[in-house]
């Protein structure tokens, strides 16, 4: 394909954080005019590698070569000037300022020392035209959808000479058409000789648009493959270090029939603009999986049926009685609890101790006057720490110092301490190492066996299939279908989640 010298070459990259080794002697190369994917599980070292390439982190060892010359980027700005640009998932642009300005700010065309707005607009029009974006360059960035904002971010990155373009999870919030658009832009850039680093966990997309794949695991380079030569199953094996088939959690007790009355029943649930006309039944003892792309409306669905967001339409029945919970406090009193996907910003109160975090919801339920006595708090905290194996088992430690997996357990303890009937978990295993992931998945199964209704939302399709009895597919704000898990495979689920139209079963 394209041999010769790589445009960007990293040899022996090593990065340590204290005693921990994030990257261990990793080699990486990128050729101009290719689309290259970086793959690996969470914690494999992908983001560390990107930070090393883009100057956001210094390396302890290793040599970086760009265009044959050894370079050292002290700051991201150095990398940008050298032509290495990154478009992150969180749009790093300015929503309050026009599209044209976002593209141009930092290197605006000037006349007599003042900004030449006419040339700015022209420049922006050119860039937008190249991307095929039909938007008004004078409009504020914030009025546009995330997909458009992302393309504008790419526009900014390519508006001056770019050699390497790093795209970090670019398709997570895009629908099918938007993904096609993005891929068209990527292919155009390829033809221009730009080297593109495409970081994504969507295997299908990687196979569709990338030429080569580099797999990292535990900070080490596992291999570099041509996408046309490597099988999916081998790629997954390289990422996980074991075959996917061996990853089954323990079998769940056979779930009963459909005749049992659902504990929570939602019909026609609509919250504008996130979720529309959704029907959900949560039964005792069942794990109800929810799968969909990010931004499809899964969290909106969860927040709608747990009463956290006000419904614009729809009816919720709990134990047969119609209810209208107006917020988490009401929902909790009805036995319905919700665990947010943003564990750090909407879950853990990091300044409070583990004990205080665990007893928080219970205390809130009892009201502010009836304080839970200290001995009882300690009793509760200790029993949950033991039951969920929270480490370190120190209840007076600030909860913010715990690792992601243990924080998630603290959150679960908090919710379970309320003795709920319905447990809605939004991305509970995100950003957690594999060991803790399996613990939590097993726990969910145990809870269902004990009679709880669990709604389990996850972007990892394998996980949803492993844990759920039935799976609801959410796309563009609607529940497209609800299917028993045995009838699905990862690929068929992926098809339902990513594509519009008639793919069924």
């Amino acid at each position: 394909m394209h041999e010769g010298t790589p445009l960007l070459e990293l040899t022996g990259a090593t990065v340590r954080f204290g005693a921990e080794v994030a990257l261990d002697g990793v080699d990486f190369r990128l050729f101009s005019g290719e689309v290259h994917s970086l793959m690996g599980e969470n914690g494999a070292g992908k983001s560390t590698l990107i930070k090393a390439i883009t100057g956001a982190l210094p390396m302890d060892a290793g040599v970086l070569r760009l265009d044959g010359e050894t370079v050292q980027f002290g700051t991201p700005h150095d990398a940008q000037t050298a032509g290495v640009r990154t478009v992150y998932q969180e749009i790093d642009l300015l929503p309050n300022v026009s599209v044209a300005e976002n593209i141009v700010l930092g290197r605006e065309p000037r006349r007599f020392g003042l900004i030449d707005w006419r040339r700015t607009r022209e420049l922006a029009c050119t860039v937008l035209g190249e991307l095929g974006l039909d938007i008004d360059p004078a409009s504020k960035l914030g009025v546009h959808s995330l997909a458009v904002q992302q393309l504008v971010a790419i526009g900014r990155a390519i508006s001056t000479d770019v050699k390497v373009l790093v795209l970090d999870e670019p398709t997570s919030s895009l629908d099918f058409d938007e993904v096609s658009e993005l891929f068209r832009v990527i292919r155009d850039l390829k033809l221009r000789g730009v080297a593109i680093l495409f970081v994504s966990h969507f295997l299908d997309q990687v196979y569709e648009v990338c030429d080569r794949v580099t797999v990292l695991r535990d900070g080490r380079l596992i291999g570099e493959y041509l996408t046309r030569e490597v099988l999916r199953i081998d790629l997954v094996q390289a990422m996980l270090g074991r075959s996917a088939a061996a990853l089954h959690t323990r079998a769940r007790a056979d779930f009963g029939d459909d005749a049992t009355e659902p504990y929570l029943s939602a019909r026609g649930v609509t919250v504008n603009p996130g979720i529309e006309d959704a029907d959900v039944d949560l039964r005792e003892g069942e794990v109800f999986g929810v799968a969909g792309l990010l931004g499809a409306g899964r969290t909106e669905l969860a927040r709608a049926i747990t009463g956290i967001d006000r419904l614009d339409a729809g009816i919720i029945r709990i134990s047969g009685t119609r209810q209208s919970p107006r917020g988490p406090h009401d929902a909790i009193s009805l036995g319905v609890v919700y665990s947010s996907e943003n564990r750090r910003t909407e879950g853990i109160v990091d300044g409070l101790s583990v004990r205080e975090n665990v007893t928080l919801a219970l205390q809130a339920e009892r009201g502010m006057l009836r304080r839970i006595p200290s001995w009882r708090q300690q009793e509760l905290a200790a029993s949950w720490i033991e039951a969920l194996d929270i480490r370190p088992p120190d209840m007076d430690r600030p909860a913010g110092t715990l690792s992601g997996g243990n924080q998630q357990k603290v959150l679960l303890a908090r919710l379970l301490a309320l003795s709920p009937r319905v447990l809605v978990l939004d991305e509970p295993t995100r950003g957690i190492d594999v060991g803790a992931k399996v613990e939590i998945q097993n726990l969910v199964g145990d809870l269902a066996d004990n009679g709880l209704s669990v709604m389990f939302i996850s972007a990892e399709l394998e996980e949803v299939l492993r844990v759920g009895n039935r799976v609801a597919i959410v796309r563009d704000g609607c529940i497209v279908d609800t299917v028993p898990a045995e009838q699905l495979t990862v690929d068929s689920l992926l098809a339902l989640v990513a594509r519009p139209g008639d793919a069924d079963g």
Partner: protein
Amino acid sequence: MTRTDKPTRPQTSLAARYGTFMSRHSSILPTFAAVVILFLLFAGAQLYFGNFLTPSNLSALLLNNAYLLILAVGMTFVIVTGGIDLSVGSVMAFTGILGAKLLADGLPAVLVIPLMIAGGALIGLLIGVLVQYFDVQPFIASLAGLFLARGLAFVVSLSSIRVEDPAVLWLQSTRFRVGDWYITPTGIIALLIVVIGVLVMQWTRFGRTIYAIGGSEQSAHLMGLNVARTKVLVYVISGVCGGLAGLALTAYSGAGYPLNGVGTELDTIAAVVIGGTLLTGGSGYVLGSMIGVLVYGTITAVISFMGAEQSWTRIIIGTLLLLFIVVQRLIVARSERRK
């Protein structure tokens, strides 16, 4: 999506034009509301008094509020970055009394005026450094500036000092007349500051960086903009405006007085917010702040016309401020829900 070389111009139906306008200039809405209010005030006052909208009254409006206008321009810079400057009233008093003292001691005005401005700039620099390099919240840092400036004012003098210097007095007593309209040099200075403010905010990278910081400081940094220097400079600018306002006020009252400007920072913030600048930063216009100052000035003038107590001014400004904030909040809440 079709590929085009130029984005197509939107259709010219009224709804589409409104949509385009809003997507480009939604942040001008609060300022527009301020203009409407000013208009209503003028109309109402004219109807009530019959002789309110005369050239001499309107000229007096600028004359009496020149100091506030200067302060408001500086404050706009600070607030658009998402910060706040509580020291402006005290800085105005300090530079005023400092100037008066130096003039009384015999220094020529040509030396004293730059010193006044430098004094304001130094305090602004202190605040800016605290905010940017020591992570102090702007509220606390400018609070320290407030205390410092007020204290320094009293160190200079405990009582008022008259200004006899002809150069300074000229700034206020001269009137350039065009028919019944007149303007003083201080008025010209104030308007000049406004023009410079507009120019900088809309046509320089520095000004655009200010909006960027207000929009998302992290993004601005990642875009390679010099966030640190800009953040410090806006406080210096506010300090410079404080110094100029001190000059204007001293010329206006013919004396420096250490107790000047108590509460003026609040009036300034109110004028800027009423003029359409969001306290959260990222949007706002210098011209809007000028409208806000005119609103403030008109209310004060109307109240003095009515012979009512001046305490009503503060109450009305407070209520207006409240109205603006509630409406701003509702608009923000609605656009957040729509996302």
